């Protein structure tokens, strides 16, 4: 158990956990502090410089980097904070490729959230020189694309691949205003060590890393991924009677919001016309659709003829642990053989 810390943000009493940072504590209490480079899954870096606060009337510091401390008085706004934030967000907008109407992230864009909070004035923006940048969009990955013109260099993707995935496929390239996120040698994604898990894509706060086929689900169903025995928690997004998206369940202890490439992007088999939805029995050299009862009876009779060393069972990684247990039990106790194996045996 960690200790509780009591302090105030803008006069409001806050109870936080020891070790938490001020930004996370504020967000948990529905107090918004603007931010772009912070993600609760990642170590804070203080790069976007938007989340400044003043503690006990001191200099502005970044709330993502400041641990909560007992009794402190945190202010989320002051003339200095306002000025620094205002310049930062205006610079970001003047640098950004603002095609919001066509952007996959428009419904969930942190840049727009910050701008809305700051109330950006067009006449102030007009004073600024716009960045002229027309970098090619990397569409090499089958599942997502990367538009560097929309990237805000928050580094969330870089840190995600480093800290969560452990792969380190991404890094920063070049310096200053030319800084871009890229793979080793700035090669297209497919030519890099990227495993297409999409962890970076779901965390990108803007539309720079975005799924190629963004689909908006009308409703969601909570379930477990069918691919392997890990049993990641997912939400299937459904539109009409089709599964259109997969979202990781952050509450599920098995995956805590992470997924692999198959779990996240490999769901089109669900609605695929080639998918078997009824058992097939080979009659006269041709497969014919059958009812379940008939198929199961056929299997049972064949099993009964094949007890002992004639029999071997190969289980699937798509089954749960319990299902796999039952298969080995059945093989040993009913079929009388130890010949049992599994496709994911290591």
């Amino acid at each position: 158990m960690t200790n509780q810390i009591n302090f105030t943000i803008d006069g409001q009493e806050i109870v936080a956990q020891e070790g938490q940072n001020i930004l996370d504590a504020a967000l948990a209490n529905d107090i918004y502090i603007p931010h772009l480079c912070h993600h609760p899954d990642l170590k804070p870096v203080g790069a976007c410089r938007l989340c400044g606060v003043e503690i006990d009337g001191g200099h502005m510091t970044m709330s993502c980097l400041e641990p909560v401390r007992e009794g402190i008085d945190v202010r989320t706004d002051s003339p200095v904070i306002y000025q620094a934030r205002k310049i930062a967000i205006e610079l970001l907008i003047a640098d950004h490729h603002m095609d919001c109407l066509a952007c996959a992230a428009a419904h969930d864009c942190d840049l727009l959230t910050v701008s809305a909070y700051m109330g950006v004035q067009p006449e102030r923006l007009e004073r600024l020189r716009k960045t002229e940048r027309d970098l090619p969009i990397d569409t090499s990955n089958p599942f997502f694309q990367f538009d560097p013109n929309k990237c805000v260099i928050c580094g969330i993707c870089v840190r995600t691949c480093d800290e969560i995935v452990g792969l380190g496929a991404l890094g920063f390239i070049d310096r200053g205003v030319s800084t871009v996120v890229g793979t080793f040698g700035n090669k297209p994604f497919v030519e890099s060590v990227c495993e297409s898990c999409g962890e970076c894509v779901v965390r990108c706060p803007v539309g720079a890393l975005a799924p190629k086929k963004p689909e908006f689900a009308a409703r969601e169903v909570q379930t477990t991924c069918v691919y392997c025995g890990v049993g990641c928690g997912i939400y299937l997004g459904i539109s009409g009677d089709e599964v259109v998206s997969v979202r990781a369940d952050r509450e599920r202890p098995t995956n805590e919001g992470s997924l692999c490439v198959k779990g996240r992007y490999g769901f089109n088999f669900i609605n695929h016309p080639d998918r078997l939805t009824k058992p097939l029995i080979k009659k006269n050299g041709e497969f014919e659709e059958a009812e379940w009862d008939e198929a199961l009876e056929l299997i049972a009779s064949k099993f009964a003829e094949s007890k002992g060393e004639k029999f071997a069972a190969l289980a699937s990684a798509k089954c749960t642990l319990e299902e796999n247990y039952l298969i080995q039990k059945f093989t040993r106790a009913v079929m009388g053989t130890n010949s049992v194996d599994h496709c994911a045996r290591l």
Partner: protein
Amino acid sequence: MEANDKTVLICRGTGCESAKSPAIQTELMSGLQGSDVEVKFTGCHGMCQQGPIVIVEPQGTFYANVKLKDVEPIVGSLKNGGGPVEKLFYKDPATKEGLSTYHDIPFYSRQKRLVLQNCGRIDPEDIDDYLAEGGYEGLKKAIFDMTPDAVVQAVLDSGLRGRGGGGFPTGRKWKFTQDAPSDTKYVLCNADEGDPGAFMDRSVLEGDPHAVLEGMAIAGFAIGAQKGYIYCRAEYPLAIKRLQIAIEQARERGYLGKGIMDGDFDFDIDIFHGAGAFVCGEETALITSIEGNRGMPRSRPPYPAVKGLYDKPTLLNNVKTYANVRLIINNGADWFASIGTEKSKGTAVFALTGKIANSGLVEVPMGITLREIIFDIGGGMLDPNKNFKAVQTGGPSGGCLPESFLDTPVDYDSLIEAGSMMGSGGMVVMDEDTCMVDVARYFLDFTEKESCGKCVPCRLGTKQMLDILEDIVEGRGKPGDIELLEDLAVGIKAGSLCGLGQTAPNPVLTTLRYFRDEYEAHINHHACPAKQCKELITYHILDTCVGCGLCRRNCSTNAIIGEQKELHYIDQSLCHKCGVCFEVCPPKVFSVEIRTGEVKLVES
């Protein structure tokens, strides 16, 4: 060395080496073979513009701009015991008189050389030369006669402040690192020296590498570290080579390594080659870079003294800071504290450049005025007919001070108060032909390119300021741009993560503070008062032209039209504004005029 034995010292600092001083050394050696004159090479003497420099000791005879063909007369004078070679004497820029020894040259006589005391005097590749000058005595005294606490106390009492720019009290930093509990600690030397035009640290490393090693070893003893790294940019191959030689010699003689001087203190040093990014001079970026990552700063706290290299307590100081340490230990904190001003002790080393007669490396006591450095030591303006306009200190983080600040004492706090800063030691002198908006643009161009890109205000803000400044110098400035620059400066200074961004607007802010009228002239009148910004000036031939045709023949774009002995004129549509016509028009005629502001085309 017998009193009347002569030694010839030839400078082999980077500047003199590139002007063939190694060949001169070889020639001198073969010429003097068999004589009792010893030939040695040294590090930089500081007066790089006059190089290659040859000095004959003990008299201190000073030969400037020595060429290979000059070796013969020098050898002749030494061998035959004749008088010195007068034509190679340094000429006083004011009196044009030849000065025979460096003691007579104001550039040297007005300096106080402590950190640079061995530079130009000893052979940096020979540890015996360093030992002969009392080398490693400080380390010996620290290890055998003092406790770590006493060493830290001496540095505290000396009042030494960091020479890397910020001026943080060195003793306090040592104390923090000493107090941080850990078995493993590191001593780092910042030899990244990225400011444009700065070469103070390089000269110390090339001219007196052991002084830095000794300072680091004393620091290691004081804070309880066994390992040190020197972070030196790879663009300094000579410094790296001499450091490597010095480290090897120090190890051989037991001044580095296990059981230093047969005591029980272990300390060793390695060199880390930096890739030459300015931001890697920032302490946290430097540490990140040694750890093998992209050199990007991280937020402090934790400070390196608590959590530095590999998360261990780490002491980081500048080259010159370490070079001062042995002097403090040898001569005592009181001696050191007696030099300089109340809050800035010791000396400051500057790389004096720009429109100054004697450019080079100078070391002066803190508290001396800018006027003394520029006019007494520096010899005043390069072109005596031009007026002084401003002096820039502190590199890209600093500012430009106008004439009214010439009597400002040079110390950490006075310079900050004036809007500039000490920085690591660049000092650029500007004359009336310098456009201050263009100076600001130059520095912003540097910081914009060197920004690591991590944080928004610096990455995008320096670019925004640069775009505006480029617009202004190219005639596209808009009303409101000055206010926008000021607005941006506040946000960038307050918001940036590291010192690079926090200080990047300074060159703009000081030029706005002292030369605002120049910005206004550019924006409101399309005029560059210094007549430097190409887009805002035009060249014209006055009717005093005698028609000699010099300008016409020299113009690369054939923009000058006129018959011999007749009035010439410039076709503005063809003129590329290279300024050749202005240069070549004979001074007696002086018929080419640069106009700015009101664009008057000469009718044909």
